[in-house]
């Protein structure tokens, strides 16, 4: 059961030529044809994620994601994945801040079966208390693997919490340890009843299938699930950031220091006038790969860093972050690296960008988007994450054209608005001597007070 973090490079989309319709109960259906092998990738996306956790229950949507494998009246606990496997399929699920998604990759002639099973657990989940408790322990172990064993992940978690004072993007997708430990069966079922309904879900199927073939199957399975009113996703609003924030995690298991600078940024859903597309071009131009401005200046020319890069992902229902990551080279001090970074940002904002580098980056982004078609699941993930974060099919299909339309002036304007230290968080990961920080199992101790 994966977690889909907000940070990270998004795959470019476009040219998938999907077809779509909406069932009478409000569930949107999207089909993307790919006839390369007699298989399909079948996904259901719910418009709910960790940012919709009830107060004090951070990560509850991820817990529910795990519990969705614990059975219905028709399917015994733990049998869901085994049935899929017996039919030659793989299945799993993932949770992000904004969505929860379930999938099976399977032979085309088994599609009707998995649709029936997925539609069944949309409405008929049954939870045995013993299974709920064992799964809570599994999630605590998952949290240890993903976060508490990894200082870099601990810094990332603290960075999100510092970036968002009020908006629930401050919450770890997996949840805080002590809040995970407090989940009950009733919490999970109440959340399920509130959010899981066909009108709050999107079906996306890619593979050896046409919409005409998919339609009757969808009507016969998901189409029979009754719609129910689900809440509007009204998250707490982030107040204006008035002060720069800085955090430092000194940890005895850090051997290589690193730096991250995070700026609040609009997403595709919140931005106007193509600003998100301009930010995508900016991220690539400034910190995307081995010929970007940052890499050339700081890694190659000044030899101050072993690596540096920028990430912006605009598929987010509310405002997101534009982030720059770097690690110093050899004994170079973090302050020195940070000064060099600020100098490059200053140069970009003061002198702007040149027409040629903007055109170069745009052509590359558009050409690279063809690679997204060499995969069964990339298109599904692009549509699923877009449609659950306020974008439309037309937005995705129009992405190459939108990138092509970005001007030098828009990139410069986006940079000027973005790079305000007063709206940033700087995170530093540094080595510590033994005993200079709380023991790493402090999280476990917190649980007893939660």
């Amino acid at each position, binding site marked *: 059961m994966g977690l889909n973090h907000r940070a990270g490079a998004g795959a470019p989309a476009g040219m998938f030529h999907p077809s779509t319709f909406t069932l009478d109960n409000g569930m949107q259906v999207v089909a993307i044809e*790919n006839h*390369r*092998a*007699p*298989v399909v990738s079948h996904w259901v996306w719910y418009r709910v994620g960790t940012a919709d956790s009830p107060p004090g229950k951070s990560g509850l949507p991820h817990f529910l994601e795990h519990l969705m494998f614990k059975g219905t009246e*028709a*399917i015994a606990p*733990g049998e869901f*994945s*085994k049935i899929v*496997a*017996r039919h*030659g*399929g*793989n299945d799993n699920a993932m949770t992000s801040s904004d969505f929860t998604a379930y999938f099976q*990759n*399977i*032979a*085309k*002639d*088994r599609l*009707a*079966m998995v649709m029936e099973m997925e539609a*069944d657990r949309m409405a*008929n989940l049954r939870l045995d208390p013993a299974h709920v*408790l*064992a*799964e809570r*322990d*599994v999630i605590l*172990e998952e949290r*240890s*693997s993903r976060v508490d*064993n990894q200082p870099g992940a601990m810094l990332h978690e603290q960075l999100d919490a510092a970036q968002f004072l009020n908006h629930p993007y401050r919450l770890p997708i997996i949840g805080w340890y002590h809040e995970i430990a407090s989940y009950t069966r009733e919490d999970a079922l109440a959340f399920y009843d509130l959010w899981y309904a066909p009108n709050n879900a999107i079906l996306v199927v890619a*593979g050896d299938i046409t919409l005409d073939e998919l339609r009757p199957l969808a009507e016969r399975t998901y189409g029979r699930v009754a719609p129910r009113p689900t809440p509007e996703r009204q998250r707490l609003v982030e107040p204006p950031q008035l002060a720069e924030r800085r955090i430092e995690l000194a940890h005895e*298991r*850090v*051997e290589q220091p690193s730096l991250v600078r995070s700026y609040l940024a609009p997403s595709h859903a919140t931005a106007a006038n193509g600003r998100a597309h301009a930010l995508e071009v900016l991220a690539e131009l400034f910190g995307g*790969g*081995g010929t970007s401005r940052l890499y*050339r200046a700081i*890694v*190659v020319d000044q*030899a101050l860093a*072993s*690596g540096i890069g920028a990430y912006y992902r605009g598929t987010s229902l509310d405002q997101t972050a534009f982030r720059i990551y770097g690690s110093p*080279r050899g004994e170079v001090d973090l302050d020195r690296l940070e000064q060099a970074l600020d100098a490059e940002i200053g140069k970009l904002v003061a002198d702007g960008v040149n027409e040629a580098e903007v055109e*170069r980056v745009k052509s*590359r982004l558009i050409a*690279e988007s*063809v*690679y997204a078609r*060499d*995969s*069964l699941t990339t298109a599904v993930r692009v549509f699923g994450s877009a449609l659950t974060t306020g974008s439309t099919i037309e937005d995705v299909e129009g992405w190459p054209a939108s990138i092509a339309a970005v001007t030098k002036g828009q990139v410069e304007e986006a940079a000027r608005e973005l790079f305000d230290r007063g709206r940033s968080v700087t995170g530093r990961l540094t080595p510590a001597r033994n005993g200079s920080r709380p*023991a*790493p*199992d402090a*999280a*476990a101790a917190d649980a007893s007070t939660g």
Partner: protein
Amino acid sequence: MPAAALAATTAPGSAFGTSVERVLTPAGLEAWLVNAPSVPLLTVACSFRGGAAADPAGSEGLSRMVAGLLDEGAGELDSLAFRTELEDLAIRLHFSAERDALAGRLMTLNENRDRAFELLRMALAEPRFDAEPVERIRQQITSDLQRRRTDPNTVSGRVWFAHAFDGHAYGRPAQGTTEAIRGIEVADLEAYVEKRLARDNLVIGVAGDITAEELAPLLDRAFAHLPARADLPPLLPATPVTGATLVTPMTIPQSVVTFGLPGIARDDADYYAAYVANYIIGGGGFASRLLEEVREKRGLAYSVYSQLVNAELAPLWLGGVATRNDQVAQSIDVIRGELRRMAEGDIGETDLANARTYLTGSFPLRFTSNESVARMLVGMQVAELGIDYLERRNAFIEAVSLTDVARASARLFAAEPLFSVVGDPLGLDDATRLSPLVAANGNGGKG
């Protein structure tokens, strides 16, 4: 409700129709091709036998450093010019060092494929190894090695290999050591290219929108210049040590465990039976016994798994689990108990039938991207499976009987695994405790 889901299973999917062509070039090179015209691009996977295991003692990480530098400038193009051209043409060229091979991968859109193959030729024939990229890549590798010294997953695996293969090439860190990387000179890199990238240790797989006639001259352009024979050191087979539990102390809330045993070779008559046995014990995700017993029933771990590793010099069966420190002893007990059940032949017809339908039914899922197909074509040639393997493969699985699985399980799981635990585990009183520093330096086997 889902009646179909509960019905007895038959083999899913229709007959699988991907055909593999043998491409012979005018210069005498061979490549295997799957023509897939649906998207106007292609992927080339190539593999030079050798890899980290063939790096000389004292030069651990040499293959990795070469891999990192082949796309950092070649011919008349310095690093920046080379990388700029790759990016401007959306050509993806990447090399990586594996335990048994140096692997290359080229992906290009059709419109740029002539230039893509020319850049591949330059990378293999005329890498520049200029001072700036050499020092930059050297520093990136040492920085990564330094960072991983305290990564429990890395340390757990490294200690396992160091102890299991003490004195053998597999016991040396495949990712390199800081000292060795610091000592590598440009002459070593040049000698590597001259001696270890040759035609007799090369296999090539191609998938995408290209015909055999179009591909042949491009292959000659990229590879025909290579010397006929590679100069590789003798690569001697080995058998991993079994039956010990090693603990590397680290202050973390969750212990990370690597465990393993000798595997069964790819060309062994029991290979497919072993493949089925591994699916049943730990290869089958939620359908596997380890996940059922460790995670589903007891909530001891998020992840527990096993796999057969077709390492050329020592076939392996390897697994992993991560469990809270106070429960790691219990997890290991559960794992040992499940392996014993397998060794004793406690395997039913249903286990076999479920494994069979999954392993045969899921095979077509591997044919959904050029990259996956090209890699598979390389693997088929390395293991000498024959060009018609894709058509025959499911029959090998279907032919495995319960007796075969029991026999393979008895062979695989007769010995006690070697467990490498990193963390602060309670219990495990009979374990050998290594010193943290020794383990982090990759010499855990001497502890």
